[in-house]
């Protein structure tokens, strides 16, 4: 049976290369259009919500709480509200990406992060530029220019990313630190294969699960003889992974 190599899975992922500390290359998976759009959707709800709350608050204060405000006080209240809405509208993405090291609430939910092409958190200018050029990216319609630019870019950069020199990457939660080690005979492709089996076995149907386990065990016994304990394939794989049976 042909072995699905972990590389075949990795090919579906587009990665960005960064020159990390000690000049070691750092490969980080790029965010997909879908998760970026969803993150944007959440952020837009927050922006609209905040503006709605501001308008409602101003209305309540000026007509219910203090309906007999003088012209000057009324003007000042409205001026404050105009200023607050302006700041939310133009400053939301900029402020969050600057203060939360390249994340907004929406990006945090989906595990996305803006980094510069050097892999650093965006500073004042990159955060300012990428979020101003957003106004060009959203045109025409819904992110017309932005989607096109992302499709044409090897690093999935929208126009604002290109101009600012930033990339949006995906931060997967790191695997749990169980301190487990694999026996000497096992090479990387097989380790990755067993790890994926362990992660995904619960999603297989009861009929299918033993079939996959048998095929996997047969493959391991052929590639690395003597590594897998004898007996039932599923229990043998669990024992290999250091699980108490």
């Amino acid at each position, binding site marked *: 049976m042909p072995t699905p190599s972990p590389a075949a899975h990795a090919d579906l992922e587009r990665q960005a290369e960064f020159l990390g500390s000690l000049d070691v290359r750092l490969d980080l998976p790029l965010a997909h259009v879908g998760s970026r759009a969803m993150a944007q959707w959440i952020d837009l709800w927050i922006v609209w919500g905040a503006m709605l709350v501001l308008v409602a608050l101003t209305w309540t204060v000026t007509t219910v709480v203090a309906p007999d405000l003088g012209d000057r006080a009324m003007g000042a209240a409205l001026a404050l509200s105009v200023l607050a809405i302006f700041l939310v509208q133009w400053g939301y993405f900029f402020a969050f990406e600057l203060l939360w090291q390249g994340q907004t609430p929406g990006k945090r939910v989906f595990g996305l992060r803006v980094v510069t092409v050097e892999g650093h958190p965006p*500073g004042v200018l990159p955060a300012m530029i990428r979020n101003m050029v957003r106004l060009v990216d959203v045109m025409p319609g819904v992110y017309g220019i932005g989607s096109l630019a992302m499709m044409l870019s090897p690093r999935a950069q929208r126009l604002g990313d290109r101009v600012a020199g930033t990339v949006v990457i995906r931060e997967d939660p790191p695997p749990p*630190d169980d301190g487990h080690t694999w026996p000497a005979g096992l090479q*990387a492709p097989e380790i990755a294969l067993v790890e994926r089996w362990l992660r995904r076995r619960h999603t297989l149907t009861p009929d299918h699960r033993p079939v996959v386990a048998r095929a996997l065990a047969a493959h391991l016994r052929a590639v690395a003889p003597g590594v897998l304990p004898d007996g039932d394939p599923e229990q043998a794989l669990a024992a290999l992974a250091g699980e108490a049976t």
Partner: protein
Amino acid sequence: MDHARFVERAQEVWRQTEALLDRAGQEGLASLGFDELEQLAAGHRRVVSDYAFARSRYPGTATEARLRSLAFAGHRLLADRRAPTLPRLWRFLRTGYPSVFRECLPAVGLSLSIFTGATLAGFVIAAMRPAFATLWLGPDAIDQLRHGEIWTDSVARVAPPSLLSTRIFTNNIAVALMTWLSGATLGLGTLYLLIMNGLMFGAVLALSWRYELLSRLFAFISAHGPLELFLVTVAGGAGLLLAEGQLRWRNRPRALTLPAAARRSARLVAGTLPWFVLLGIVEGHVSPVMTLATGLKALLGAGLFAAFLTWVLATPSSPDAHP
């Protein structure tokens, strides 16, 4: 080296580094003591070299993924990123911006000539053939002018000055930012905005002259107008710089030249923003007061304009001009 030896010999360092990175991420680097910082620096170097080994030897495994995530967290934390502090902001306004402005003088000059040229063209065309002005001005606006009304009359009646000021400066900042960033369309957007606004302004001048409203127009605009129009052309210059970054990359990768040009143009726009606030206050509180002599307003307008020019042209440059 087999997997067991690889993990067992370094596992403790990875765990210590992870704990320190977590703490530094939550409480800030300053919360770590000297010994802990040294430990973090050494641990990070170990993590990075182990990651390089794991990537070549154990690609696609959980070990590689864990080390990558640790290496990235360390890389982010240790990156040299100076926070935007008030002293830095002040230094930018004090000495940084003037030298940025002087560096960008050719772009500002080009933008100013385009706007001025379009204004002249708009004036001449509208003065000779008023019908042509309808191409840029709405029929309502022209109708108002013909009946001796000018929009500046109604502006002051509808809102108290503080609200007016805020509305005006937020709107003008938005206009300046749009003029700048529409340069990201290879310059077409900025050119369009500069030319259209020049034509409209020229046509308004011509029609006001024709219907003898010019003195009232000047009474309204002379306090805030000169600097405001100039600052919008500065934003136009920034848009042209952005376009230059897209169009002229010579033999360097555009991925490098474009961000550099964008940063320069962003600085050029950033320094104009506080002035829009000041001009908004003038436009909301002084300009609508029709009892004030136009001469006094013009004096104020000239003073504001001179203040800006003195700031950007006469401030000596400092060695650390770029924030």
